[in-house]
């Protein structure tokens, strides 16, 4: 029988939530790495028992953990993230140039084809790759050549937070950086180009159509149509039908088009999910109502999903890596909040239930569908 494993990264440790295919009764394991910030943990699609976790701390820096048994046991592996050569400078908050400084790993993306190959997105923004199961990490420095001197940190830091591998072409990678924008490589990371045409940031950039500098929050695609990308930007929900060459806005009738996560239904590539947040200065749901919005038309027409979610006095946020979907026949949708709840829907978002309600602030949620 199929099972699901939900990997939850929080401000104070990692948790592993498991259930059978009914997704009604959950076992909670954790906290793993108690007291540490776990920005992200994710399993290898090729070997689901191989997990990687980013463990960090303001005191002790960056640690990477690896599990070979689905999160029961872990071992610390390579944590040296050295930029290739002299990384130079990027734009600082005051407009001056500032040296690149490694701070932490925001996102770990295991390769679709090799459990020992993993991409890491880090702050200050850069992409690293390991091919030996995270013992050694090497930067893909050409990314910084894509106008890196013009990239600028947002309030949360200058982080590379999204990495998406094209399932049909492993040479094609999409990444996103706050606040630099989206970038694509068609040669396995040897070269990169900005893919931000159509993004508009009139409140954030002097040139609202700038080639780089946009605060992209998250990108998602459906594996059956990897040229169709969906994006939650700082403001605006966007869509590209040409692998990012150009974007159009699909915010439509959302109550707010500010937000962080975006994801795609496992079986319907035109069904997408976002969690609207009131504004860039008020990071909580509009009207105190926690609502996931679903579009079955690839954007523009949205419906509020509320059953089982708090509809009054709710002032949590849902961060960019804190939403995921399973691939069971009835697609499950999951998200975690900064209030420590992880909600699950076993019916594509129609009905929701909390799996856990009192975790530390949730940074990331990843789901594995296991046979």
């Amino acid at each position, binding site marked *: 029988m199929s099972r699901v494993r939900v990997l939850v990264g929080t401000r104070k440790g990692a948790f592993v939530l498991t259930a059978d295919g009914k997704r009604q009764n959950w076992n909670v394991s954790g906290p793993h790495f108690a007291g540490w910030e776990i920005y992200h943990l994710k399993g290898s699609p090729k070997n689901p028992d191989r997990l990687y976790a980013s463990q960090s701390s303001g*005191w002790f820096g960056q*640690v990477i953990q690896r599990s070979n048994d689905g999160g029961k046991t872990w071992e610390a592996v390579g944590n040296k993230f050295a930029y290739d050569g002299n990384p130079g400078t990027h734009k600082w908050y005051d407009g001056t140039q500032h040296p690149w400084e490694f701070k932490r790993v925001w996102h770990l993306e295991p390769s679709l084809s090799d459990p020992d190959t993993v991409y890491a997105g880090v702050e200050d923004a850069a992409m690293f790759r390991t091919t030996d199961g995270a013992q050694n990490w090497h930067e893909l420095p050409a990314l910084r050549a894509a106008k890196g001197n013009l990239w600028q940190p947002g309030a949360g830091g200058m982080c590379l937070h999204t990495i998406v591998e094209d399932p049909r072409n492993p040479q094609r990678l999409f990444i996103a950086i706050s606040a630099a924008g989206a970038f694509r490589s068609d040669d396995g990371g040897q070269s990169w180009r900005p893919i931000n045409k159509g993004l508009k940031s009139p409140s954030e950039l002097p040139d609202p159509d700038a080639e780089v500098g946009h605060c992209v929050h998250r990108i998602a695609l459906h594996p059956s149509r990897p040229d169709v990308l969906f994006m939650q930007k700082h403001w605006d929900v966007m869509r590209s039908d040409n692998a990012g060459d150009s974007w159009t806005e699909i915010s439509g009738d959302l109550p707010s088009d500010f937000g962080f996560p975006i994801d795609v239904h496992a079986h319907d590539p035109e069904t997408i999910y976002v969690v609207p947040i009131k504004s860039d200065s008020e990071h909580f749901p509009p009207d105190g109502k926690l609502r996931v919005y679903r579009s079955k038309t690839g954007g523009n027409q949205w419906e509020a999903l509320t059953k089982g979610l708090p509809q009054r006095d709710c002032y949590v946020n849902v961060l960019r890596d804190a939403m995921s979907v399973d691939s069971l026949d009835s697609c499950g949708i999951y998200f975690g909040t900064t209030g420590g709840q992880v909600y699950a829907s076993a019916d594509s978002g129609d009905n929701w239930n909390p799996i856990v309600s009192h975790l530390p602030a949730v940074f990331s949620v990843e789901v594995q569908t296991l046979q």
Partner: protein
Amino acid sequence: MIRVLLPAHLRTLARVTGEVTIDVAGQPTIVALLDALEARYPTLQGTIRDHGTLERRPFLRFFACQEDYSLEPADTVLPGPVANGVEPFLIIGAMAGG
């Protein structure tokens, strides 16, 4: 044999309990002790000192014999009671809330 007391999170990471004891070849300096500590427990690499610069992480302090050695040069020789194992070398995490 030098006794070292690690912060709780680093004891967990190194999979040790209580103090650890470290043999230091040659002069017992701060850098020699940290080099030997990291060689014995490789998972501590990068967690006490920056990988590249080998600078002490800003929220950690080094105490010995009721003195603060955090700002001393890395080649400072440790005091006799630490070098001969009478007193421990303390690696301390800064206090913080939250």
